[in-house]
């Protein structure tokens, strides 16, 4: 069971959220090449490790969250708004540690 710390609602069970896929994929500019658009639609880094992903808090604030989660331990180390990025400018949220 994932426990996702929503910045607006607090920590909630995964059943309140809908997964919406890889958040590291970004849409190319309109004049992008077909290869860039193919990569945007179909390419996935799919790492065994830290993964940036979208979760929609349908059972709560209905906001879209950007979450950095480990794909093996399921540990969540950063949660932010869609325009934020896990970096120095947006320091990690204080996320309680959980056992894998």
């Amino acid at each position, binding site marked *: *069971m994932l426990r996702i710390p929503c910045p607006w609602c607090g920590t909630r069970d995964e059943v309140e959220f809908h*997964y919406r896929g890889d958040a590291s994929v970004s849409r190319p500019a309109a004049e992008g090449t077909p290869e860039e658009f*193919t990569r945007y*639609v179909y390419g*996935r880094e*799919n790492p065994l490790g830290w*993964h940036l*992903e979208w979760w929609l808090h349908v059972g709560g604030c209905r906001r879209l969250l950007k979450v950095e989660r480990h794909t*093996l331990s*399921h540990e969540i180390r950063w949660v932010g708004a869609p325009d934020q990025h896990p970096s120095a400018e947006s320091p990690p949220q204080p996320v309680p540690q959980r056992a894998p």
Partner: protein
Amino acid sequence: MPSTPRSSAPASPPERTSSGRYSLWRLLREGLTGQRGWSPAWTKAAPRARYRVVVVGGGGHGLATAYYLATVHGITDVAVLERGPLGLGNVARNTTIIRSNYFLPDNVRFYEFSLKLWEGLERTLNFNAMVSQRGTLNLFHTEAQRDLFTRRANLMRLEGVDAEALSCEAVKELVPLVDLDNGRYPVLGGFLQPRGGTVRHDAVAWGYARGASEAGVDIVEHCAVTGIRHAGGRVTGVETARGFIGADVVCLAVAGYSSELARLAGLELPIETHVLQAFVTEGLKPVLDVVLTYGAGHFYISQSDKGGLVFGGAIDGYNTYGQRGTLPMVEEVAAAAVTLLPALARVKVLRQWGGVMDMSMDGSPIISKTPLEGLILNGGWCYGGFKAIPAGGFTTAHLIAHGTPHPVAAHFDLGRFAAGRTVDERGVGPYPYLH
């Protein structure tokens, strides 16, 4: 692979023990002589420095590929590398169902090819895989669903595949446990493929391993691949836990980990890794003699020959390499089980497990060359890899041996995504969490 020269002659083959032919006569003889005449079914080989073909992954597809390379195409200079012991990945984690009741004609043809190979598999391998064609029954609960299943059955029959529509009464007779008059999801009827069924999954890995080993393939366990070497756009071999192994062709058959292995070669695949859970109950007397799938939820169930009810549902729905699964899906599967078969409420679940799988962007597998010459990919099996093992191995071996795809699997090429020829059985689009 006609254009690839062999750069070095293979070293002398290692000592290879033969397990002999299995038969009723042999069983009787061994029974009377203290079972002392059996020998291991396959030889645990040490890797040589170079092979013509290296297959990464000692699961169903990897072993089947090696088996068909050796027996159909005469290419025996082959190694199968497995990171742990043989056949403990997805080939041992699925719910053992075989069927060819697909919707898209390309898929019907491919999976029917596989089902035909299943039908002759035990004779071919001289190994008891317990292929049991008990039938797969899909229930429908709405009129729209009935129309869709009827269309699917008609499409299958046009391809010469067996499919039958069952009335509510016929469903009742076949599976008396089903709650036909469920207040919310009453059963309107069923769609039966009589030739579908189950197979003992471990025996598939063992049978192919035995056949491949006897045909001259090296099966190397505890040999994790840590790198893929290439030069000038062509693969030259693999770095492993047991040293570098040179190869003209490297075939990845590591569904679940395809992205991680392809990354070693600098490739990004249209795949996400998700976990699918499965469950088995305590052993019961025979109560269910078909493979049953629920139409109002994602749930499928069959009874193993040992008596346990084996069942599963949908993927957990987010990227994970954790082979365990989480509780919300357990609850969802249990709810579907009890809604369809109320008697199951009193049955104890003995074990639950998860397998990680390649969810491709259209829900269909990838059997293809890659941009790196000599690197072949067998992956993207989503949650349907087990039933496809014979055809997946056969067509991958064909691709390696001839350099051109086998006709029944040509549409599973990697280029289909860029070209817009996706094989999307459910019409969902590139969102694995919805597949």
